[in-house]
């Protein structure tokens, strides 16, 4: 009977959609805090989609920073991160989320609150010079 086939199909679609929705809400719950912290503390300049502008660099493609200890440290020592009004644990969660979700980084060692605390204690005197120094040592690297 065609009607039975159609209702079966509709049922299957609803079931699949329900699974996807519940999976999405589970992911959203885990990411909720870093997503919110990104919005309130980073997105004003880096933009909600992390594409940046004339004023600030994009965060898409920042994964190569993680390939050297200096680059990894730079991502915490840079003023916007080091001076953010967030706890070390929230900065660590924010960085780990942003690097994967916005920066496309995979398989990296997540930052811990202790690592963030240590790096924040060693702020950059000249962020742009440090960035240039890191970029010179690596190819390919985002502009």
């Amino acid at each position: 009977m065609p009607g039975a086939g159609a209702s079966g199909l509709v049922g299957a679609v609803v079931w699949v959609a329900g699974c996807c929705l519940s999976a999405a809400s589970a992911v959203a719950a885990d990411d909720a805090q870093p997503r919110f912290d990104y919005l309130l503390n980073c997105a004003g300049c880096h933009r909600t989609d992390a594409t940046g502008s004339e004023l600030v660099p994009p965060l898409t493609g920042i994964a190569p920073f993680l390939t050297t200890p200096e680059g990894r440290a730079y991502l915490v020592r840079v003023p916007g991160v080091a001076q953010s009004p967030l706890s070390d644990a929230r900065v660590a969660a924010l960085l780990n989320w942003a690097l994967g979700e916005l920066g496309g980084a995979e398989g990296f060692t997540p930052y811990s609150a202790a690592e963030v605390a240590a790096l924040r204690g060693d702020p950059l005197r000249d962020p742009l010079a440090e960035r240039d120094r890191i970029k010179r040592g690596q190819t390919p690297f985002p502009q």
Partner: protein
Amino acid sequence: MSEFDRWVESSARMLARRLPRRSLLRRLGTLLVGGAALPLLPVARAAGEGARAGQPPEDIEGPLGDPSRCEYWRHCAIDGFLCGCCGGSHTSCPPGTEMSPVSWIGTCRNPKDGKDYVILYNDCCGRGFCGRCFCNRNEGDRPIYHPYRSNDINWCGGATTQVYHCSTALLVGLALEGQPEK
């Protein structure tokens, strides 16, 4: 030839004589190009921005529910001229101005559901001060040493022209925590 055929032929000839085809082509062209350009307008982008997020109730009586008023709930942290009084709206820039890609971001509480929402205060840039509907509410505003939480910055710095005209209040979605933080 049948009566019907003659009637169709005379109708078609009459239409061809009376309807200018260039005008039809022009209208069709306008429709095609205009329709394709519609999603590029700032108002359409702003609408899309809201559609992705949890929508707050907007059926609020009085000034708290009126986007043309300073008291409008989304304006809780604004500092500038309301674009709704300057030829645009609270989500779109007036003609001749461009929306800055950077903005300051805060939260406002919706009076209807009592929840906090993240609001982007994107400035419209490219013409001199609008000068109408100045609105200076600073809830959650931070000193300039937290630049991304300060509304005293000229956020037109991210646009191609740095001349400030007016401010919009775009909705992003639900906030986990209201501003200012306790």
